[in-house]
């Protein structure tokens, strides 16, 4: 092997506590995010086993999955808010873990709050009992989702046992076309590669398109890594990363900051580093995307037509298409544009950050949500909500007829009771269009925030490029 190593190699190697043989390492966990869906139970299990949280200062806990997004909400506003959110507070506080409850100015979705507080840092190894933990790789962290038994393991030992995955680099070069955003890039990639292409791989995103993206857009890309099977997605930290982090409350300060940046600058794949798999895309080929089926790989350009089962050679794919079309209430061969919708959800750990809301607001400003559509905007955190309100985005959304709600996972996973009704069709900026994801028989079309806002106004799936800004929103 040459001396050239990948970003992934460097991140992995820096965390090996001990080799356990057979490609298996015991790795140090620098950062552990804990949420309400599994947090209280894991902490209770630890207590029952007579074990303590080894490093509570390296953890951060908050309720996001089970809490209501209703304005004026309390834990009692959702069916399981008090039990799960309240339970997490009790257990986290007893263990000395920093906890951000509903009243706290830093509450939000774990994958929004980690980066925005500076808890997530380049070169850190971060885990959370949630598959979208890959989001944090956007800052150059080695981050992945773990199961609930592993959550208990991390709490007790501050380590994780992990087999070294293979490496994969996805390079995207060139300038994105008008109306094309990070969500379209990653949906396009998943559509092209298929939903299992990343299984067993740690993915690095690179290329001029990625380098030109802001950190929040990079988070959208890394967030969806798991939707093509990759537990970890990452982007080498650069000047954009350092500028994003500097001054955030938990980021290093003063001399420690300078030292950290010097270390972080070394976190990149060396020239000549070899990956187990390499794939390249051209940004110019990517159009605004929307999914038509029940898997994130079932995506197409908004200008395209829904595939017919017959268009696939493989019997399995023909069958998958047929089943998906039936569930979605669509016919193969139709244009996806013009599909009438009932709901729009702008939010989730994929697309609920300030830049996402700005893009949606730019489309919404001076227009009105179609009368038959219920459209929600759910900021990803209290910090995002306050920043959006400071620049008047809430007023733009409210004037257009959107609901402006409180931070949490909300309708992405609907564990707070905020479901899409059976048979209803929802354009959602979230990450999964699985059967029943937003509620039993709910029909989900994934898209980016601007596309979702355009759909809310048109009352149907539509090309955002025919919605030029009418106002002065940033």
């Amino acid at each position, binding site marked *: 092997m040459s001396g050239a190593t990948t970003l992934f190699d460097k991140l992995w190697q820096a965390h090996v506590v001990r080799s356990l*043989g057979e490609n298996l390492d015991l790795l140090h966990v620098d950062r552990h995010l804990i949420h309400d*869906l599994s947090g209280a139970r894991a902490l209770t299990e630890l207590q029952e086993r007579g074990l303590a949280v080894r490093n509570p200062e390296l953890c951060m806990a908050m309720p996001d999955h*089970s809490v209501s997004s209703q304005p004026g909400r309390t834990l009692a506003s959702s069916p399981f808010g008090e039990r799960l959110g309240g339970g997490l507070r009790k257990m986290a506080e007893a263990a000395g873990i920093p906890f951000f409850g509903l009243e706290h100015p830093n509450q939000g979705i774990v994958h929004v709050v980690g980066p925005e507080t500076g808890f997530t840092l380049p070169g850190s190894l971060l885990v959370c009992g949630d598959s979208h933990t890959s989001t944090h790789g956007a800052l150059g962290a080695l981050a992945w989702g773990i*199961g609930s038994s592993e959550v208990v393991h991390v709490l007790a030992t*501050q380590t994780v046992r992990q087999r070294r995955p293979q490496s994969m680099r996805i390079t995207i070069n060139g300038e994105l076309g008008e109306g094309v955003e990070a969500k379209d890039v990653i949906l396009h990639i998943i559509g092209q590669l298929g939903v*299992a292409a990343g299984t067993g791989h740690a993915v690095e995103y690179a290329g001029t398109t990625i380098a030109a993206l802001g950190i929040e857009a990079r988070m959208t890309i890394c967030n969806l890594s*798991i939707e093509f099977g990759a537990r970890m997605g990452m982007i080498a930290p650069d000047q954009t990363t350092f500028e994003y982090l500097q001054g955030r409350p938990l980021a290093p300060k003063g001399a420690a900051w300078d030292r950290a940046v010097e270390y972080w600058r070394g976190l990149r794949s060396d020239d000549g580093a070899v990956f187990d798999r390499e794939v390249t895309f051209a940004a110019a080929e990517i159009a605004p995307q929307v999914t038509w089926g029940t898997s994130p790989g079932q995506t197409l350009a908004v200008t395209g037509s829904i595939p017919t089962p017959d268009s696939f050679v493989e019997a399995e794919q023909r069958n998958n298409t047929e089943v998906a079309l039936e569930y979605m209430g669509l016919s193969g061969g139709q244009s996806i544009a013009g599909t009438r919708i009932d709901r729009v959800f702008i939010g989730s750990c994929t697309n609920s950050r300030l830049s996402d809301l700005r893009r949606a607001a730019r489309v919404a400003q001076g227009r009105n949500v179609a009368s038959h559509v219920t459209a929600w905007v759910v900021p990803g955190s209290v910090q995002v909500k306050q920043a959006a309100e400071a620049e008047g985005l809430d007023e733009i959304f409210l004037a257009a007829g959107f609901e402006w709600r409180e931070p949490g996972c909300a309708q992405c996973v609907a564990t707070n009771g905020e479901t899409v009704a059976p048979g209803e069709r929802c354009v959602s900026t979230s990450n999964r269009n699985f059967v029943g994801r937003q509620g039993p028989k709910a029909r989900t079309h994934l898209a980016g925030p601007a596309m979702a806002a355009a759909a809310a106004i048109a009352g149907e799936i539509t090309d955002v490029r025919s919605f030029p800004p009418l106002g002065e929103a940033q």
Partner: protein
Amino acid sequence: MEKLQLLQGVAAPLPRANIDTDIITPAKRLLDANRETMHEHTFEPLRFLADGSENPDFILNKPGYRDAVILITGRNFGCGSSRETAVWGLLGLGIRCVIAESFGDIFFNNCFQNSVLPIRLPAETIAELLAEAGDDQGNMQFQVDVASRTLTTPSGRSITFDLTADRQTALLEGLDEVGQTLKEDAATTAFQAQDRTARPWIYDLGTVD
């Protein structure tokens, strides 16, 4: 953790790709999650009809397959959400082994935390196993021997599967990872002491206030 050494029984064929953990455990069932009752909802969208009654077409509702201990299924089984309730549910239904061409990585890992054995086999082999499991209304007995890493089919065919030595030992002896890692705690302490000088910013977090 419970030991898994020798498994013998019926294998249920579920030839469908990309069965995600939202299908195995719908989100609304996570809230009440407990290990003992999770199986009541496992595969809910496939297993039950809209009125809550059993879907007679779903394999685990068919006579002969209700007591299956092995599931043979399509590629990318268990993709999606990290929810370990998916494994608890399978376990509650009595499934101790899942055989597929590929699995979601997190699900695959979660299986080993719960003494469930996921076996990866090539697509052609899966197709043959599905056919064999579908014969004779499910009265055919499969056998999985963890010690010899061998799957034996009702027709007497013997198939060796991959299983790393550490996972094999953990299954055979019912070893728990937390207990094992706690024995390494001195190594973690040493790592942190050294790392603190190299990367002090990891350990010296401020507060958000």
